[in-house]
């Protein structure tokens, strides 16, 4: 398969979910403005980080004056995710380093086919989502005042639906379901007592169910 055609496959794979990242990009731009972040800074944030949940967490931190640890913790999940997809990356060190930046929840999930990660799907989907994320951020920051708050449109409440849609195909087999249920329980228990980000990182311990044959 030609590389170009492969990347097009990745773009096509991501098209059905393209509206989500675009709207969340707009939402991020709006929230960034509300938190007092300048347009250039917000757009640069999306261009250099490209990680929705952590960027929202960072914006909330800036708005509330808290610690940036939550955003860092939220993105800690990318380390094991990139380990899982490591076999899909090729080329020299710099190439792998750059390509890896296109790894986000959606491209990672889309690229997983038959238990393996397809490089062209991950990169093609990643490129489309990257463009939409930055484009949405630009729209949100530039025309934010005329659009109003994300909560006016229910965008702030749509995250759960997005993640639920991504989670459902991964819940295959008793081990995965058990681990997911335990992870959810850990989050519920820790949420009232720990800073944002900690429950998610603690929940990652449920992956250790994989040690059981």
């Amino acid at each position, binding site marked *: 398969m030609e590389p170009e055609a492969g990347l097009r496959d990745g773009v096509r794979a991501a098209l059905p979910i393209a509206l989500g990242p675009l709207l969340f990009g707009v939402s991020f731009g709006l929230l960034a403005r509300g938190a007092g*972040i300048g347009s250039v800074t917000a757009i640069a944030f999306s261009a*250099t980080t490209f990680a929705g949940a952590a960027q929202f967490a*960072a914006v909330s931190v800036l708005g509330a004056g808290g610690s940036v640890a939550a955003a860092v913790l939220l993105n800690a999940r990318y380390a094991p995710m*990139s380990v*899982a*997809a490591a076999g899909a990356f090729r080329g020299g060190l710099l190439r792998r380093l750059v390509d890896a930046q296109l790894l986000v929840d959606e491209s990672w999930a889309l690229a997983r086919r038959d238990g393996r990660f397809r490089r062209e799907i991950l990169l093609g989907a990643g490129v489309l989502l990257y463009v939409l994320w930055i484009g949405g951020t630009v729209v949100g920051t530039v025309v934010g005042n005329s659009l109003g708050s994300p909560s006016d449109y229910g965008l702030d409440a749509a995250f759960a639906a997005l993640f639920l849609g991504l989670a459902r195909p*991964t819940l295959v087999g008793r081990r995965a379901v058990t681990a997911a249920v335990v*992870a959810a329980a*850990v989050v519920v228990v820790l949420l009232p007592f720990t800073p944002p980000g900690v429950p*998610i990182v603690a929940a990652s311990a449920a992956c250790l169910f994989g040690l059981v044959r």
Partner: protein
Amino acid sequence: MKPWLVVTVVGVVTGCCKAAGPVLLGGRTLGGTASRVVALIAPVMLAALVVTQTVGGDRALVLDARRRGGGRTAAAPSVKVSA
């Protein structure tokens, strides 16, 4: 914290996390027990994110009627279950 400092810190950490696998493992794949653990990362992380987004508040469990309805229900009062 200054916005640019937050952008830099989160950006660098994110870049390192995303590159961890491809840089450290190269084109190699995990096998056996490690692969079974890694296979659970997606369901575990996504389940945690679903719960966080559904009932997560500022160190509290907050049940938001809009989130129960997947964002379809219009604005409704939030019920604080625990502080």
